[in-house]
């Protein structure tokens, strides 16, 4: 009996200690929007919000900017983004700056509830108080929007939020950002933006079984909204290695002639970055390029060969087309579909973004996982609203699973040295049916909001 009593006491103590550990106080409500904000601060906040791509998760396509409600599918269930307009009832209109700072640094809302790490506070914890102040000023000067949102549908027992304190204990290293004295000021600035507010790793790093980023495999490639977020580093599958200039151009323009067009969630990222200055984006590019490292001699030689081949005479002439097919019926079918549906743009001689990328340059064609090229083939690249943009038709309605599989097998064989992809038809089927959910976005545009708001607002 005595032993049980002691055990019970220990359990109670542990629970009590955990409760104490998990407990966060409420921060007094204020009338946030009534405050006066320096316009320069608001402007700075707008830039930072664009860098942080806040609008992407916090807006349902077609709804008002930052009004939340977007369902974020996670392996643990669907989490709905909150309304972060300064509406007092349904937004964050009662949040003081201190409450905002705490949410960014610790992942706790004003009332003291732990937030799910779908809100990437494991990155935002590095954002300086000064930058948070500007973000706060920007958000509090948006128009308040009143909303009703569906609740979250996370798996048991994750609905019990104090458990998130345990997750944080394991995976949240609270900021602030510590510059590396061995790096240049520009690289430190880039690291601060990319690792903090930019939260690149949220998509580009793999996650463990508890949904936390695997710190040992930083930028080794991850997943976002049904798309592969390719590795940034030595394991990049880009046939022509990325360099600082290419990354900067890509981030600012949403495409690069040797790499193609941003698609999926990255389209929103670059759509937002488009309205920043080179000065804001260059440090990120420099930092990301520093992680890419220098390609080894073999990769470098292959890239040089490819570049010579592509810019040489008759570069695109004798590549594809049905005549190029060898082997059996599936190969013939793939080649015929390629000739009719793809070659006109992808071998049309018109440079990206308005012409299709030469598939020899495509990371999607050269990567071992065909998910991204399946997504693009099925859903295309929708045009942006009211501005010139890259565009590609989707083929979901005209090609069946087997035909797309034949086509992609042909493209892989023809334009990459990689081994053949396995099980493409089944992946196509799962993607088409929605079993594998994919978010489709126009190129170079913020389409979650009605009129391409975001940094442009």
């Amino acid at each position: 009996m005595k032993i049980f009593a002691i055990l019970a006491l220990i359990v109670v103590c542990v629970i009590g200690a955990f409760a104490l550990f998990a407990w966060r106080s409420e921060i007094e409500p204020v009338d946030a929007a009534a405050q006066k904000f320096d316009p320069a601060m608001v402007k700075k906040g707008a830039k930072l919000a664009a860098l942080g791509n806040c609008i992407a998760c916090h807006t349902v396509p077609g709804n008002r900017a930052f009004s939340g409600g977007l369902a974020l599918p996670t392996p643990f269930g669907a989490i709905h983004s909150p309304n972060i307009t300064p509406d007092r009832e349904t937004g964050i209109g009662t949040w003081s700056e201190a409450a905002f700072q705490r949410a960014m640094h610790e992942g706790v809302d004003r009332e003291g509830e732990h937030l799910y790490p779908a809100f990437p506070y494991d990155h935002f914890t590095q954002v300086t108080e000064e930058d948070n102040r500007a973000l706060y000023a920007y958000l509090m000067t948006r128009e308040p929007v009143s909303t009703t949102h569906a609740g979250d549908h996370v798996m048991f027992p994750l609905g019990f939020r104090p458990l998130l304190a345990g997750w944080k204990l394991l995976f949240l290293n609270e900021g602030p950002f510590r510059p590396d004295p061995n790096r240049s000021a520009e690289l430190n600035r880039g690291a601060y933006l990319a690792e903090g507010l930019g939260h690149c790793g949220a998509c580009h790093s793999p996650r463990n079984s508890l949904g936390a980023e695997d710190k040992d495999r930083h930028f080794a490639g991850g997943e976002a909204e049904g798309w592969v977020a390719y590795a940034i580093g030595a394991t990049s599958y880009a046939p022509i290695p990325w360099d600082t200039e290419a990354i900067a151009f890509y981030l600012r323009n949403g495409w690069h002639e040797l790499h193609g067009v941003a698609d999926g969630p990255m389209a929103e990222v670059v759509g937002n970055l488009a309205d920043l200055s080179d000065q804001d984006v260059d440090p990120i590019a420099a930092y990301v390029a520093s992680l890419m490292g220098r390609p080894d001699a073999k990769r470098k030689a292959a890239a040089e060969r490819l570049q010579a081949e592509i810019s040489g005479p008759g570069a695109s002439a004798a590549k594809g087309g049905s005549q190029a097919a060898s082997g059996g019926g599936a190969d013939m079918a793939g080649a015929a579909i390629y000739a009719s549906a793809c070659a006109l743009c992808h071998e049309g001689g018109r440079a990206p973004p308005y012409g299709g990328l030469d598939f020899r340059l495509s990371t999607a064609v050269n990567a071992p996982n065909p998910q991204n090229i399946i997504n693009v083939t099925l859903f295309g690249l929708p045009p942006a609203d009211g501005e010139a943009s890259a565009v590609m038709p989707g083929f979901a309605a005209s090609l069946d699973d087997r035909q797309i599989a034949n086509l992609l097998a042909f493209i892989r064989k023809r334009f990459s040295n990689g081994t053949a992809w396995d099980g493409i038809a089944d992946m196509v089927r799962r993607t088409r049916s929605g079993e594998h959910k994919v978010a489709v976005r126009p190129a170079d545009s913020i389409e979650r909001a009605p009129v391409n708001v975001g940094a442009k607002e």
Partner: protein
Amino acid sequence: MAITLDVNGRTQEVDTDPATPLLYVLRDYLKLNAAKFGCGLGQCGSCTVMVDGQAVFSCVTPVMTLEGRKVTTLEGLGTIDAPAPIQTAFIEVQAAQCGYCIPGMMMSAQALLQKNPQPSEREIRDALRTNLCRCGTHMRILAAIRRAGELMKSAAAEKAGTG
């Protein structure tokens, strides 16, 4: 290669390269000229037809992929003497200027309305995102699609009432 096609409910055989775009087969072999060649790259939508009820760009659809599937062109919806609701609506609203993009617009709209007879303004705009008009009846096109939805609805109600 002989390919059997079901176009507007008629089964027809065409002898052509399997990679021939459907648009060429429609216009050159079957003399169905509603679908137009615009960009030839699946970007402007003037070649839009329906395959199994879904809008597709016929200029980038290899004809070999269509065996056993139902192709519908604007000619298959109705005639000048017996127009389909969407055709009636476009005439009523006078929703064409030069008319080059219009058959594609109408097929995209028809595919939408078959799935969703009462689309919202945003759903209409989304469905027509890949149909370009360069001379400017955009607002009338939108109005005509809304009107077509009404006409389809009343036609369905009439049918239900009498049948």
